[in-house]
């Protein structure tokens, strides 16, 4: 429903994704299974909140990663499976809804930093298919207070403390790298953006004219 964010932002995630591209997605599966198990154990209410739906299937596509995820949040046996590719034209025959966007925006959604209303005003996320399922998923995860880092760290018991410090240092580097890349991107594309804005404004006027003509001829 939003601007099709098919072009991923230039970000550390994208670079990491490109680096990972040679590895088959099945290698991810054990990690995903472990994460899902933890989330299921620590936040059973997420799946309870979705129980009103007949086993919805979500395709979650972080556009800056070379893979996508199929999420089936069944109350007893929730699963997430990585897929290397899918056909955007037919995916809604198997999935109820598709949520597409940069990994970091999807993480914001998962960890409750984006609320239900803002979701629909976000320029970053694109939603297709059953809107009701998506709203339910958003509400369910928001209510669960999922924090992926904390949920995973909880596995490590006494090691969680030192790991948390390492994660924080990593976050600083990540955030710095994100800023640097954004700066680089802006510098590269600035001239063409100006031109783009001018063309867009002309196009906008033309579309309005066509709409007015359409309405006139309809009446």
């Amino acid at each position, binding site marked *: 429903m939003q601007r099709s964010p098919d072009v991923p932002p230039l970000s550390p995630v994208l670079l990491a994704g490109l680096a990972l591209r040679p590895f088959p997605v099945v290698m991810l599966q054990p990690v995903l299974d472990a994460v899902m198990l933890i989330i299921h154990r620590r936040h059973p209410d997420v799946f309870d909140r979705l129980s009103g739906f007949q086993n919805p299937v979500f395709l979650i596509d972080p556009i800056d990663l070379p893979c996508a995820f199929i999420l089936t949040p069944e109350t007893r046996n929730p699963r997430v499976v990585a897929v290397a590719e899918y056909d955007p034209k037919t995916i809604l025959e198997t999935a109820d809804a598709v949520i597409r966007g940069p990994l970091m925006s999807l993480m914001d959604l998962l960890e409750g930093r984006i609320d239900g209303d803002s979701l629909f005003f976000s320029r970053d996320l694109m939603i297709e298919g059953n809107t009701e399922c998506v709203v*339910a998923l958003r509400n369910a995860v928001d209510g669960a207070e999922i924090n992926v880092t904390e949920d995973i760290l909880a596995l490590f018991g006494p090691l969680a403390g030192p790991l948390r410090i390492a994660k924080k240092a990593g976050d600083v580097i990540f955030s710095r790298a994100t800023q640097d890349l954004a700066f680089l991107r802006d510098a590269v594309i600035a001239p063409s953006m100006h031109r783009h804005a001018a063309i867009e404004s002309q196009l906008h006027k033309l579309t309005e004219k066509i709409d007015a003509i359409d309405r006139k001829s309809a009446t």
Partner: protein
Amino acid sequence: MNRPLELVCPAGTPAALRAAVEAGADSVYLGFRDETNARNFPGLNFNHKELAEGLKYAHDNGTRILVAINTFPEAGNPAPWHRAVDCAADLGADAVILADIGLLDYTASHHPSLRRHLSVQASASNPEAIRFYCNAFGVRRVVLPRVLTVPEIAALNREIAGIDVETEVFVFGGLCVMAEGRCALSSYATGISPNKNGACSPASHVHYENQRGKMVSKLGAFTINQFHADEPAGYPTLCKGRFVTNGKASYLFEEPTSLSAAMLLPELQAAGVTALKIEGRQRGRAYISQVVTAFRKALDAIAAGQPPPPLDMSALTEGQRQTTGVYEKTWR
């Protein structure tokens, strides 16, 4: 000196409830996970166990819990609404927020000691209506519909001064432009009724279509808005849609905007209101934390006799506009 204004905050999940309490809510309002309340949205609201835990948490922190049971049971099926009232009473809720007269009658006779608030959905916009609900059903607080200006609220409070009743008004969040509880627009387009089923412009009937490079948002069979491909497409709430009248497209009912009466808090206090309500049980806990924190600061400043600090809500309105709505007469 006036007594401090009560801050009434929304919660759609136990996490949001905790966020509201931590941010300084005096009261939190919530609903059961079914059609008995006006925010019956997928994945939202409380089951009985969550309400019991939420009540304990809130009461341990000195916060009141108000349970909204504010839809209208349709003939032949009153049981879920009666059960909801019974459950709120049994678990020790501080008040129930009701709209339907039959349900008010049931509550007054079956649970006389359970405090009763009148929901905005009852649209009690004048002194005779308020007097009626107080006399007939012992209502102790009325949430005023968003149809009155600040001077009208002040005049209304003067007229009901002889009745033992408080008034509560909305100060932030989504905004109904029609008189609440008296709008069948969404029902006309979707068959799902805000009054009966508790959902306006329900997500189940929302879809987006790509037409000739434009993104079209639809509610049921009706186009509510159109956007350019790179423009963010808003949620198609019916009365915030763009329509054509006399050959001209416009947001005839209301722009996609949020209510913010943050700048009117001293005036609302002077108008005699008891409580200020924040809309948004469907919003996430990030929203709840930020809005409640901001209003808590403002109310504490007012209580200390200082001017309220300017509230920065820009992060929450996401490029949406803000309005003081009907509180200023020119809105009409």
